[in-house]
C-alpha cells in the first residue's frame, strides 16, 4: 500500500508540502533550540566540573540555634530559657584532620588527584587601585591535575605560582581591575587593618566565566601566612576518574566525616533547577509546534479519507483488507513524519554550523567563548526524531483507523444513489 500512499501524497502536492513543513519546522526547531541550550549548558557544566573540581571537602558550617548550648551548660535533660539566645557559628572554619583525609583520598582508587586549599577573602591593591577578591592557596602542581585552571592561563605559567614564593595567578577580571600585568607586584592584605604582603603576578588566566575570572591563586604556604593560619586548610578539592560518580561518592564521604562534602552538581543545584526550567520551556514550545504539525496531518488525512471513500470501497471489493486500508492512510502520515523529520534534522544540523559562526560581543561568556556554542549531541537528534515521528504517527492513526472501519457497501450504495 506504500505505492498507493506515495501516489496520494504526490497527487496532493500543496497539502503534502504543508504537512511536511509542519514536521520539518518542528524537528529543525527542536534540534536548533536544544542545540543552542545544551551547547551553552555543556560549556557551563564543563566549567563547573573541570574548573572547580569534582568534589569539595570543606569544614562544616554549623550555626548555633536557641538550644544548641543547653546540654553543654546544663546537662541533657535541662529545659533552658535564654534571655538572650546564643547565636553565631559553632565550629572552626578549618578542616580539623586534613591528614586523615589525605590518607583516605590516596587510598581510594576512584580518586585521580586532590588539592588541599586555603581560601581567604583579601584586599588587593596596586597603587590607588584596590579590589577585594578571593585568594585560593593551593599546590599549583596538584591544582592543575584537579582542575583545568592551567588550560585557561593566557600569560605566564600556573605552576610558576609555587616558584620562589610570593607569587600569584590572577583571573583576567581581577587583573583588569588592578591594572597589573605578569611580572608586576600587587599588595595583599586581609583587610584595611591587616598586614600587607607583596605578591608578584606570575600568571593570568581567562576562563570566560566572570565569577571565576575574579579569583586569584597563590601557593598554599603563602596564603596560610597571609591568613595567619599556618598548616591549616579549609577545603580539599578532589578529582575523580569518573565525574558522573561525584554525587554518589560525595554522599558516602559526607556520612563518614564531620566535614561538609559536596559534589560539583550538589554545590550548583540551583543551576540544575534553571536547567529544568529551560527544559520545560524547550519541550513545551517545541511540543506546541509539534501539536500544530500533528493537527495539520490529522486534518488533511481525515479530509483525504472522506475524499477517498470510493477508493476505499473499490479496494475492499478487490480483496484488500481492513488492515491494508489502515496501512494505506497510516503510511501517508508515517512517510510525512519520516521525510519531514529527516529534512528537519538535516537542516538543523547544517544551520547549527552557521549559528556557531555568530560572534558574541557581550555577556558573561564574552571572554571565554567568542561565538554561540551549539551541541550536536546525537541524543538531541534522536529526541527530535522520536518527537516528530510520534506526532506524525499519532496524528495518522485516528484517520487511518476510521478509514479501515468504513463499510465498503455503504459507500457503494451511497455512490449509486
Amino acid at each position, binding site marked *: 500500500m506504500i505505492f498507493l500512499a506515495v501516489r496520494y501524497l504526490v*497527487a496532493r502536492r500543496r497539502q503534502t508540502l504543508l504537512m511536511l513543513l509542519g514536521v520539518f519546522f518542528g524537528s529543525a526547531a527542536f534540534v536548533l533550540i536544544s542545540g543552542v541550550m545544551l551547547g551553552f549548558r555543556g560549556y557551563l557544566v564543563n566549567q563547573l566540573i573541570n574548573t572547580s573540581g569534582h568534589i569539595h571537602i570543606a569544614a562544616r558550617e554549623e550555626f548555633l540555634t536557641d538550644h544548641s548550648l543547653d546540654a553543654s551548660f546544663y546537662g541533657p535533660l535541662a529545659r533552658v530559657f535564654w534571655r538572650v539566645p546564643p547565636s553565631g557559628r559553632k565550629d572552626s572554619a578549618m578542616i580539623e584532620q586534613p591528614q586523615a583525609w589525605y590518607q583516605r583520598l590516596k587510598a581510594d582508587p576512584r580518586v585521580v588527584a586532590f588539592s588541599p586549599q586555603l581560601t581567604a577573602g583579601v584586599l588587593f591593591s596596586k597603587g590607588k587601585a584596590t579590589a577585594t577578591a578571593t585568594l585560593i592557596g593551593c599546590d599549583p602542581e596538584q591544582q592543575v591535575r584537579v582542575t583545568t585552571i592551567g588550560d585557561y592561563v593566557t600569560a605566564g605559567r600556573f605552576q610558576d605560582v609555587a616558584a620562589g614564593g610570593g607569587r600569584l595567578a590572577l583571573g583576567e577580571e581581577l587583573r583588569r581591575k588592578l591594572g597589573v600585568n605578569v611580572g608586576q607586584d600587587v599588595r595583599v592584605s586581609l583587610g584595611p587593618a591587616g598586614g600587607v604582603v607583596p605578591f608578584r603576578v606570575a600568571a593570568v588566566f581567562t576562563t570566560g566565566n566572570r565569577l571565576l575570572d575574579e579569583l586569584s591563586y597563590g601557593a598554599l604556604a603563602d596564603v596560610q601566612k597571609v591568613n595567619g593560619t599556618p598548616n591549616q586548610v579549609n577545603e580539599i578539592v578532589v578529582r575523580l576518574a569518573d565525574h558522573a560518580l561525584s554525587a554518589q561518592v560525595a554522599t558516602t564521604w559526607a556520612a563518614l566525616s564531620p566535614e561538609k562534602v559536596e559534589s560539583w552538581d550538589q554545590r550548583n543545584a540551583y543551576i540544575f533547577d534553571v536547567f529544568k526550567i529551560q527544559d520545560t520551556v524547550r519541550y513545551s514550545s517545541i511540543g506546541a509546534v509539534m501539536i500544530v504539525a500533528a493537527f495539520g496531518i490529522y486534518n488533511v488525512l481525515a479530509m483525504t479519507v472522506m475524499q477517498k471513500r470510493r477508493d476505499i470501497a*473499490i479496494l475492499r*471489493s*478487490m480483496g*484488500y483488507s481492513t488492515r*491494508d486500508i489502515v496501512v494505506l492512510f497510516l503510511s501517508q502520515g508515517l512517510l510525512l513524519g519520516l521525510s519531514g523529520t529527516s529534512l528537519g534534522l538535516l537542516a538543523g544540523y547544517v544551520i547549527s554550523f552557521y549559528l556557531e559562526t555568530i560572534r558574541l560581543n557581550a555577556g558573561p561568556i564574552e571572554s571565554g567563548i567568542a561565538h554561540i556554542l551549539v551541541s550536536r549531541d546525537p541524543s538531541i537528534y534522536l529526541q527530535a526524531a522520536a518527537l516528530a515521528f510520534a506526532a506524525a504517527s499519532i496524528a495518522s492513526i485516528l484517520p487511518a483507523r476510521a478509514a479501515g472501519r468504513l463499510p465498503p*457497501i455503504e459507500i*457503494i450504495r451511497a*455512490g*449509486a444513489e
Partner: protein
Amino acid sequence: MAIIARSIGKRLGEPPSDILSGVSMEVRDREFLSITGRSGSGKSTLLYLLSSLDTVSSGAVEIDGQDLGAMSPEELCFFRNRQVGFVFQFHYLLSELSAIENVLMPARKAGEEETRRAYAFNLLEEFGLAGKSDRLPRELSGGELQRLAIARSLIMRPKYLFADEPTGSLDTANGELVVGILRRINQRDGTTVLMVTHDSGFAAAADRQIRLADGRLGEADTSVGASANGRTDRSVAPHDRGGSL
C-alpha cells in the same frame, strides 16, 4: 450450483425496513444471469449479498459449497481477490493511477503484479484501450473508463463477475459495447456473470433473467428450463472455459 441463496433477507435503516426478504435462488456455473427490477426493488442489494460484499440479515448465501456467513474476514478478502470481479455503475478507478496500474491493482494485492502484466495489456488491447495504458482516468472517456473497470475486474480471471448497472452511466453505444464484453467473457471464458440492470434490452442479453419487485422475486421474463426459486428459466448450455481475452 455455484451460488445458492436460501431465503435471504436484508433489513436496513432506522426503523428497520425490509429491502429484501425471503429470496431463494440458484446460479449455475458459467451462467449469465441478469437481475432486473424497478429502482428500489432491491436488485443491487441482492447482488451485493450474493457477491459477499454485504451480509444478509436472514438466510444464507453459499458459494461453491461455502457459507459466506461462516467465512472469516481474511477468507472473504482472499475469496474476493481470487474469485470475484466487480463492475459498478461508476467506474471507481483510482484517479492517481494510470490505466495499467488500475488494472493491476487486484494483482498487486495477490502479489502477482508482474506475472499478470502481459495479460493486463492483452485486456486493454481487447477492450480498445491499447496505447492508453499510461493515461490517467481523467484522460479517458466515459466508455473507456467503464471498459477499463471491466479489465480490472477480470485481471485475476475470476470465476464470478458481478456487475451492478454497468451501463447505467453510459450512452447506448457504449452500453451495448460493455454488455457485449460481458457476454463474450461469459461465453468464451466461462465466467459466471450476474448483471443488475434496469434496461430490459441489456437484460435480454443474459441467459436467464430474474425480476425483483419490492424486495421479492417476481416473474421471470425470458427464462426457460431449470428452476430458480420455483420459477422457470432458460437452461444454459455450458460454455467452453479457457482461452484468454
